[in-house]
């Protein structure tokens, strides 16, 4: 069961004390506009403004605190410390990401490990809601945001991950190693959730293993690049968020996610935002890569396996009593929906 408290008011003085310790030169420290966001399945997140004075001068720092509730979905695949490390590496690159400040293991401070990073200006409208869809539809007509969406992905795929120190994520060997690792990762997550047997999933995994493409080039791959995981400010991507599924591998893995109709709601616009032709043109020109649609179709099938792994894991968290969030119980019925889609992708 969730070990941490949802009581933001009780947490505030402890965050205050922690920041006082971290910023010993700061006087009159005050937390303002503390907001808990994303009462979600992943890490708990608070946004706030820190006001203080230093040598008599008023200062202000917008901060974001993410805490591990001890039962987050995918937590064994990507913990907060890894997120912190990735953000540290990305700090030196042209990719817009929040500046990471501190990571703390010590559960005595806030009951659980947490990280503190910059609160980047911007908003993150959900593409699944009516308001979010309207926001992206309007932005699509203006043109700057779709261009920024594509350019930011191109930046992500062309940054020098070795120079950034991201090789700790695991460098795949040439050939099919990247795909093999992904399949193994999602197989492991499925096994952890002690699932009931699913013959379509077995067929899907066997097909994926039978048809593994060789990776032509290795780049940083975000793993969930779509609207809803990107912060937007003034019709530009101000930060790429949700560093939980990143990996070194085939950039087409991200491109397939962008092309997928999973990430758009009743619109031909990719990720509810970008025209397909414009995405191809801009991405290929910016990266020098040619989008391989056959490979993207393969990765789409791999995403079906990943989705099944997510939903099995999520419903398993509820079933096992490690979470009391009923939204997780609901995901048990998402498994057949994804499997039906996978069967169609496999041609039946």
């Amino acid at each position, binding site marked *: 069961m969730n070990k941490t408290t949802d009581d933001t008011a009780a947490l505030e003085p402890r965050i205050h004390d922690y920041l006082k310790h971290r910023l010993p030169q700061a006087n009159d420290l005050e937390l303002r506009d503390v907001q808990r966001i994303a009462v979600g399945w992943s890490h708990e997140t608070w946004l706030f403004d820190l006001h203080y004075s230093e040598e008599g001068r008023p200062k202000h720092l917008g901060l974001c605190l993410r805490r591990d509730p001890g039962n987050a979905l995918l937590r064994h695949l990507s913990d907060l410390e890894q997120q912190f490390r990735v953000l540290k590496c990305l700090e030196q690159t042209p990719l817009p990401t929040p500046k990471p400040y501190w990571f703390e293991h010590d559960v005595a401070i806030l009951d659980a490990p947490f990280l503190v990073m910059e609160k980047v200006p911007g908003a993150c409208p959900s593409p699944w809601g009516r308001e979010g869809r309207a926001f992206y539809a309007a932005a699509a007509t203006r043109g700057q945001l779709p261009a920024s969406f594509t350019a930011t992905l191109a930046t992500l795929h062309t940054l020098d991950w070795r120079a950034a120190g991201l090789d700790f994520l695991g460098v795949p060997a040439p050939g099919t190693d990247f795909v093999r690792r992904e399949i193994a990762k999602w197989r492991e997550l499925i096994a952890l959730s002690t699932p009931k047997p699913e013959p379509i999933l077995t067929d899907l995994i066997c097909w994926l293993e039978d048809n593994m493409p060789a990776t032509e080039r290795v780049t940083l791959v975000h793993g969930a690049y779509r609207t809803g995981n990107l912060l937007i400010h003034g019709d530009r991507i101000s930060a790429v968020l949700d560093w939980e599924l990143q990996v070194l591998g085939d950039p087409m893995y991200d491109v397939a996610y962008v092309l997928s109709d999973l990430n758009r709601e009743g619109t031909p616009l990719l990720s509810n935002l970008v025209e397909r032709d414009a995405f191809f043109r801009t991405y290929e020109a910016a990266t020098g890569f040619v989008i391989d649609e056959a490979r993207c179709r393969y990765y789409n099938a791999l995403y079906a396996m990943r989705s099944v792994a997510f939903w099995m894991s999520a419903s398993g968290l509820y079933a096992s009593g490690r979470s009391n969030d009923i939204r997780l119980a*609901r995901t048990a019925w998402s498994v057949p929906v994804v499997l039906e889609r996978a069967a169609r992708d496999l041609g039946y």
Partner: protein
Amino acid sequence: MTEGDLLQRIAQTLKQDIGPAVDAEYPKTQAFMAGVVLHKLGQQLALAPQHQRDQAAELAALIVELNDMLQTIEVPAELRRTLAEFAQRRDQVTLCSLIEALYGTRAALDAVIFARLLGRIRETLRADINRRVVYAS
């Protein structure tokens, strides 16, 4: 009232009466989601007897047809063994094993035979998933 109908009634109460009466966002979402879960569970339970009958008939037909196909052709012993096990137990675990054995012995099979066997199995899988999405989606 059947168990399925009872769950549907409770789901309706949660969505129409309890959820709207809750002010705080998180418990309100939980009440609504509990209604969604019970609604799906109710549908699943109500359809279960018919779905089980259909599934049993389809698995029986699959076994007959796969055995017919394998009668006249040479296939690896592993494939015959998993088919025999599936024919005996007629469950999802042994169906998964049969699929794995089919892919695992693919190199030893003629491509047309492989496609025919897999195609026939997939026919059964499609019928099953069509039934499940009725209450899942």
